[in-house]
């Protein structure tokens, strides 16, 4: 059977991966795999993933990996980087881990300009636990804990995580938001984020708009529309913070 094209840094022996059909994680991690391949850093990377759907990537790569607790991947990777600065430390998590239970770790790491790369896959809800409301849930969006739609009055508006990080991170940090709907751009952002860590400029952060057809109960067209139209209205793609005068890496 022909093996579909996979990044070199992916493990082949345990594919297919365990994400649902149409899940955005596979796409984000494929972009990440490509970025790692292009930077030729496979032997230096330690990859950390959270609990939540991101944990299903614990054996996805041919990378040294640690799967941690909900929201705690950021401090684990920061701890590794401080102990062994030559390692390239990547923390991968969902929006619940990044923006809710682990948000103070994210804030602490960004504020200290930890030289790690944090990637948050934003699919507007807690997916593995069965589709509950998250800080990123869109106004009016129905989830298991906002069954009548998210009420902005009582539960707030979609959390602007990348903008917050850009606002608090010191000079040298790199912050961008990409999407699974624009894979070339997402790969470019991830590569620049990693480059920023390799060059020792500071913290790097990429939010990736992702898709969860299982909990959204959407078909392919509906999924695409939700990412491209509904999510795009609230979450702007693009680079939000770039180190001054030392533009992180070649825009390959």
């Amino acid at each position: 059977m022909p093996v579909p094209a996979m990044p070199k840094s992916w493990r082949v022996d345990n594919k297919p991966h365990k994400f649902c059909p149409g899940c955005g994680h596979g796409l984000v991690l494929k972009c990440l795999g490509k970025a790692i391949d292009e930077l030729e850093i496979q032997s230096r990377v330690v990859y950390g993933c959270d609990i939540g759907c991101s944990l299903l990537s614990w054996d996805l790569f041919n990378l040294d990996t640690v799967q941690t607790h909900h929201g705690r991947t950021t401090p684990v990777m920061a701890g590794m980087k401080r102990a062994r600065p030559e390692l390239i430390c990547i923390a991968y998590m969902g929006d619940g881990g990044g923006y809710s239970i682990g948000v103070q770790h994210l804030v602490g790491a960004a504020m200290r300009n930890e030289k790690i790369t944090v990637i948050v896959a934003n699919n507007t809800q807690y997916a593995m636990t069965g589709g509950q409301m998250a800080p990123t849930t869109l106004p009016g969006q129905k989830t298991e804990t906002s069954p009548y739609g998210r009420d902005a009055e009582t539960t707030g508006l979609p959390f602007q995580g990348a903008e917050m990080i850009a606002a608090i991170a010191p000079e040298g940090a790199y912050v961008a938001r990409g999407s699974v709907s624009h894979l070339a751009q997402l790969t470019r952002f991830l590569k620049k984020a990693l480059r920023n860590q390799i060059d020792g400029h500071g913290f790097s952060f990429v939010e990736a708009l992702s898709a969860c057809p299982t909990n959204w109960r959407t078909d392919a067209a509906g999924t695409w529309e939700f990412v491209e139209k509904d999510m795009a209205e609230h979450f702007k793609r693009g680079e939000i913070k770039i180190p001054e005068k030392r533009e992180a890496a070649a825009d390959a």
Partner: protein
Amino acid sequence: MPETTTKMVLAGEGGQGVQAIAEILAEAANEEGRQALYIPNFGVEQRGGVSVAFLQISDHAIGSPKFLKGDIVAALSERAVQRTATYAGPETVFIYDSAMEGVEDDLPEGAARVIPVPAMEVAKEEFHPRVYNMVIMGALVGATAVVSLDQAKAAIEKRLGYKFEKNPQLRDLNFRALERGIEMGRWPKGGIN
């Protein structure tokens, strides 16, 4: 109607509908005035992991949700066969889908009977792949008679009625698949093949 507790283990890939089968059977038994205890057991994946349902139906109060050996164990995927072999004892009827390849080595050795059921083939050829779980459910009802056909239908109606309203043909499709499954479940005694 059996006097004792019937213990069933159903396992398949997430999305194959094993939890729905167990839930419908449990509800049907409950409607018949019998005791039923169903507990889902799944991995961390929303989809794609092995999903296992433990179901007990009885005429008296049921004890622990956990049991060591099932009377009927049904495995709908290769991984499910590996996962559930441990629940097959000398009294167990082990059912698996004959469409699976390469599972021979993983089939339980000491089971009372190990029966390949061509449910996928039947669903595909005679009905529609989406009613696969109805064929399986029928096979279980046929093999155990834990609930009556009428009660099984009533429970399906309760669960899927809203879909049937929109498309009455679906009701017919599901019920025929169920009946066909029951027929298959009354498999002549005699072990493999």
